[in-house]
């Protein structure tokens, strides 16, 4: 095949044509031969079959009549047919009847019995079996065998003729192929010749001649076109080659330069490597490289110096097995396994302080910075190691020094706290006793001296407080204690506590919380109070006339926090510009002379400044000498849970006139009243007030209520009241007097002019609201809660209280006892907590004043014990803590232990009584044990189904019955007859139940309980308690009975 490809196209064409011709001829001849052979055979079969039929038919009679002679004659007739080799006639039983054969050879071939009917070729001969039938019934079989010599001869002749015809055809085909191949081959040869010429001579200008329009013609066209292109491209290439050659030369030059550069870099790198090696070996820190198996692969001189091993001793050995103390091996093994897998670990990539092991076996601290390097997929580590023994020593030294310093600081602060306590106790004595002395009859000069003593002592106390606070701030020990509070209530309370001082100097003290400022916050009210008290105190101190106004506004508010802005303006002496910044520094005041004139430590503003900073705000001042100052501060409070103020519906729409000469007060009142949906009208003087009232009257919308300021220039409040009362159309108006100070006889004046009540400014919202509600409700008793701020009136609201005073210090004991007894209370003294608890168990008290710091059992413990005893009963005795502890958390500790309130020592009478008042209020809210009529009339009436008459009769019997039972109790107790005591106490309890006398019922219950326990001693105490309780209710019951008599 390969050879064929290489022969000339001319030969190829001839060969292909010849091949095709031959194949076609051969196939045709073969087809004819096959057909001829088939036909021959068919003819022969037909002939022989016919022969058989003829012979068979002729033989029927011979067969029927068993005539062999005749049959043989018939068969012998076959001799005429030279192709018949043998023949045989079989009878109906299949036996040979007669036989014929051309030669003896044929005899052997005759089958013994007849075969299947039909013709078939066997061994090159044709044999035919045919049944011989007579009247359609087989009576025998004829067999004829014929040779095929005739056919073979025919075929041979035929093949000879065909072969000759074929040879002639092939010859003719060859002649024609040789002739016609030129049509195809010549143009191709021509083209080949030209392309050869082109390729050899590189002559692209020659062109082939197109002589036909077929594919070869197209080929020649394309070829010519290609030549043109090549010719053109050649020219272009020439120029390009020239260009490229130039470029390559340039590039070569550049490469040479680069190689030179590389060589220089290589040299530099070698130098650098050398340097690195020198650094590695000579650096001060130990450098160790550990391979993936954990063995040391690099070890520098510093490492040798640090650990004591030479590099020969350690290279190739397990790093940590040698360099780490044995106790760490397990942990390091584990960590190293992780490291080998991941290339990371807890000490990789940072400095760690570890313990190393020297060759001499000593351990020492090292600092190691470990980095991981991946080489060929394995993790190696590089450790830079430094011996930090010295540094550690220094660190320990520093730690020790720091601890020592801290201890010293702690000691100092404890000392300070203790000192404060120690100083407070005697100071307490001085202040208290001076106060008591001042209440006695004294000569004028004596009173004057004592007043000075008192003021000096108070100054000393405030100084002490300031120093303590400041030291705490300095020591960063002051902590904020945020609690939920209502802003207006809180600010007003603070301001009202300062009112007395203001009024003493005849200054207006007003407070205004801007409308729109929320009311519920979370913050440290104690510290807020401290700041405000300080600033307002200063303002009052430096103002001789005019007013001090506290303004509260909200600057910004988020969901969780609000920034409030407080400003305290006065009309005082002012502060010069150059001093304004200094005043917030400790121990600085506006002027050196100021101290002399106004006193003070200069710590107050520093403390306030610190406190505002702690509360997330700042403090600043605006001032003009002679005009006054305004101190501003901001604080951040948390937003508290909203407590909605219930709207006083009864006040809604009430037409109210406010008469005050002070504009600030007018605005404040207007805001407050508007909040309650009242309709306030403002008047700045008496004349304007009367005029407004008259106009309102004419408009048929008279004022139901007038709030009158008592002290106004020209016409004061009482004069205006007079004018109102004397004016017929206005006389019925309800009046409330507002006063800035307590003036002797004010109460009397009020009663005289039918003024429902009076209020001392600054006014608390809640107080004002209560007063207005009461006044408008009418029919107020003369002694009512409108006098709560009246010092004298305070305690009159309450009954004389039975107070347990728990105090270990004798001076304080005496002071408090005197103070309380002066106000008509009875005092039981306990020297420590243990005693207090014992007293509590046996006696009833209205309140307990509890010192916190005591020997044996302190106030906190005692309170816990008392509260534990109360558990399960309805009792809750108010406990007020008294403490000199000024440290953070004292108040919280007290309240957590179950105390109800807290006063700090030295005890200020005001503060103490206020606390008592508050706690009694709480107790009343809880159990109504005290402060209320000891019997519950309503309850009693319900018991008798409203039959007043019956109740009176019972009351009449009570006195006598009660006496009888008490006598019996007494004698039973004397006889230690617990059973009887229990029984009587039970009866007593039932009897008292009729009157709802809770205190007495409880007392009898206690007695019954102790009697049941057969504890006679306690029963005795309980008995006396019951006695006093009965003492309390007796007058009421007697009164009830008397009413009957009346």
């Amino acid at each position, binding site marked *: 095949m390969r050879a064929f490809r290489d022969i000339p196209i001319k030969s190829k064409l001839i060969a292909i044509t010849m091949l095709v011709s031959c194949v076609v001829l051969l196939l045709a001849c073969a087809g004819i031969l096959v057909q001829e052979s088939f036909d021959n055979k068919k003819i022969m079969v037909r002939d022989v079959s016919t022969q058989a039929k003829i012979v068979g038919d002729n033989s029927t*009679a011979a067969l029927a009549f068993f005539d062999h002679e005749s049959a043989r004659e018939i068969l012998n007739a076959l001799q005429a047919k030279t192709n018949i080799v043998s023949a045989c006639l079989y009878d109906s039983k299949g036996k040979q009847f007669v036989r014929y054969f051309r030669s003896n050879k044929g005899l052997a071939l005759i089958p013994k019995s007849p075969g299947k009917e039909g013709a078939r070729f066997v061994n090159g001969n044709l044999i035919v079996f045919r049944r011989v039938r007579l*009247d359609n019934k087989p009576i025998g079989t004829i067999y004829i065998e014929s040779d095929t010599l005739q056919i073979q001869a025919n075929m041979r002749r035929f093949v000879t003729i065909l072969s000759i015809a074929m040879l002639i055809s092939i010859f003719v085909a060859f002649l024609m192929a040789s002739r016609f191949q030129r049509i195809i081959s010549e143009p191709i040869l021509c083209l080949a010749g030209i392309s050869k010429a082109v390729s050899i001579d590189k002559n692209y200008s020659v062109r082939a001649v197109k002589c036909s329009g077929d594919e070869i013609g197209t080929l020649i066209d394309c070829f010519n076109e290609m030549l043109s292109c090549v010719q053109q491209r050649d020219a272009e290439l020439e120029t390009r080659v020239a260009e490229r050659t130039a470029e390559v030369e340039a590039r070569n030059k550049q490469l040479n330069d680069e190689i030179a550069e590389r060589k220089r870099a290589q040299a530099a790198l070698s130098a650098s490597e050398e340097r690195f090696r020198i650094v590695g070996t000579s650096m001060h820190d130990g450098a160790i490289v550990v391979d993936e198996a954990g063995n040391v692969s690099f070890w520098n001189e510093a490492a040798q110096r640090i650990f004591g091993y030479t590099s020969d001793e350690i290279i190739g050995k397990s790093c940590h097995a040698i360099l780490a103390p044995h106790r760490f091996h397990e942990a390091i093994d584990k960590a190293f396994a992780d490291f080998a897998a991941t290339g990371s670990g807890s000490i990789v990539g940072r400095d760690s302080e570890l313990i190393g092991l020297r060759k001499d076996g000593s351990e020492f601290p090292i600092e190691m910075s470990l980095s991981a390097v991946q080489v060929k997929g394995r993790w190696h580590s590089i450790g830079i190691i430094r011996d930090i023994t010295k540094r550690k020593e220094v660190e320990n030294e520093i730690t020790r020094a720091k601890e020592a310093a801290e201890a010293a600081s702690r000691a100092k602060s404890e000392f300070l706290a203790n000192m404060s306590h120690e100083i407070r106790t005697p100071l307490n004595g001085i202040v208290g006793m001076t106060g008591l002395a001042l209440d006695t009859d004294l000569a004028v000069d004596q009173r004057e001296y004592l007043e000075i003593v008192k003021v000096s002592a108070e100054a000393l106390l405030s100084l002490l407080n300031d120093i303590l606070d400041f030291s705490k701030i300095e020591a960063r020990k002051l902590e904020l204690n945020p609690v939920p509070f209502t802003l207006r209530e809180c600010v007003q309370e603070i301001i009202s506590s300062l009112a007395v001082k203001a009024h003493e100097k005849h200054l207006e003290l007003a407070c205004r919380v801007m409308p729109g400022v929320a009311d519920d916050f979370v913050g440290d009210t104690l510290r807020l109070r401290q700041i405000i008290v300080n600033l307002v105190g200063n303002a009052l101190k430096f103002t001789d006339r005019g007013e001090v106004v506290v303004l509260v506004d909200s600057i910004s508010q988020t969901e969780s926090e609000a920034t409030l802005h407080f400003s305290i303006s006065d009309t005082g002496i002012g502060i010069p510009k150059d001093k304004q910044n200094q005043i917030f520094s400790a121990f600085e005041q506006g002027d050196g002379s100021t101290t002399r004139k106004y006193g003070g430590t200069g710590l107050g503003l520093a403390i306030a400044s610190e406190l505002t900073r702690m509360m997330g705000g700042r403090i600043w001042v605006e001032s003009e000498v002679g005009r006054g100052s305004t101190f501003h501060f901001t604080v951040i409070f948390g937003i508290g849970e909203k407590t909605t103020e219930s709207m006083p519906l009864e006040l809604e729409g009430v037409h109210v006139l406010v008469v005050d000469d002070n504009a600030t007060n007018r605005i404040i009142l207007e805001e407050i009243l508007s909040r309650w949906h009242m309709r306030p009208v403002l008047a700045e003087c008496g004349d304007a007030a009367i005029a407004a009232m008259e106009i309102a009257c004419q408009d048929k919308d008279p004022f139901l209520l007038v709030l009158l300021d008592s002290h106004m220039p020209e016409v004061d409040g009482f004069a205006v009241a007079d004018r109102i009362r004397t004016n017929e159309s206005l006389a019925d108006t309800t009046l409330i007097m507002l006063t800035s100070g307590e003036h002797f006889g004010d109460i009397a004046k009020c009663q005289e002019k039918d003024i429902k009540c009076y209020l001392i400014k600054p006014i608390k919202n809640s107080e004002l609201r209560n007063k207005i509600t009461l006044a408008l409700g009418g029919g107020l008793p003369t002694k009512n809660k409108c006098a709560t701020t009246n010092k004298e009136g305070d305690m009159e609201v309450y009954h004389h209280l039975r107070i347990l005073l728990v105090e270990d210090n004798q001076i304080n004991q005496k002071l408090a006892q005197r103070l309380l007894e002066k106000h008509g209370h009875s005092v039981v003294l306990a020297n420590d907590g243990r005693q207090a608890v014992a007293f509590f168990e046996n006696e009833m008290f209205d309140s307990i004043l509890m010192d916190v710091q005591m020997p044996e059992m302190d106030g906190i413990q005692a309170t816990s014990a008392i509260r534990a005893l109360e558990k399960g009963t309805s009792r809750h005795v108010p406990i007020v803590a008294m403490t000199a502890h000024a440290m953070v958390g004292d108040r919280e500790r007290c309240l957590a232990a179950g105390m109800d309130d807290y006063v700090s020592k030295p005890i200020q009478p005001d503060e103490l009584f206020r606390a008592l008042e508050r706690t009694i209020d709480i107790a009343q809210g809880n159990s109504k044990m005290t402060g209320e009529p000891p019997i519950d009339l309503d309850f009693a009436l319900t018991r008798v189904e409203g039959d007043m008459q019956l109740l009176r009769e019972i009351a009449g019997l009570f006195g006598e019955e009660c006496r009888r039972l008490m006598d019996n109790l007494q004698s039973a107790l004397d006889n230690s007859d617990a059973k009887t005591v229990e029984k009587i106490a039970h009866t007593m309890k039932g009897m008292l139940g009729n009157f709802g006398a809770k205190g007495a019922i409880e007392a009898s219950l206690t007695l019954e309980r102790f009697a049941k326990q057969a504890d006679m001693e306690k029963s005795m105490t309980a008995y006396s308690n019951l006695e006093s309780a009965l003492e309390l209710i007796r007058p009421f019951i007697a009164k009830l009975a008397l009413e009957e008599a009346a």
Partner: protein
Amino acid sequence: MGMAVAILLLTALPQIGAVGRTANEYEVKAAFLYNFAQFVEWPSDVFRDSKSPMVIGVFGQDPFGSTLDEAVKNKTVNGRRFVIKRFKALRDIETCQILFVSASEGERVEKAARAAGGKGVLTVGESSHFIDHGGIINFTIDNSKIGLEISVDHARNASLKISSKLLRLAKVV
């Protein structure tokens, strides 16, 4: 039974010549009678219809016994059954298609043929001058072998066509 006779006939054939006038001779002759029916063509009017039987009559003393009955039993020719009738006296002869005239009655063949219907009766005998007396086919014994003499003229007279195949086997007189 016919099968057994046929087998007997065929196996006995080579020995026919030596048999002589024995029981076997008549078995062969009975088979020949049957075969004649196949090689002779009767005019169609001798049969009442296509189902009418081929009647073979035996006139004179019956030499066949039961062999003839057995030779044709259950056989047909052109769809016709065979019926065998035996006539003792001339006056007994009824219509038949093949009439075997025994040797004793060879001389009265013509009368017998006329009695059997005249035309269309194939007369078969076994006496030496049977043909001379007007018979058509006569059995001969030649060299212990049963041969046939057939008179083509008598056959033509009787309106019968005898197959050339049969004639080839017989001596035509």
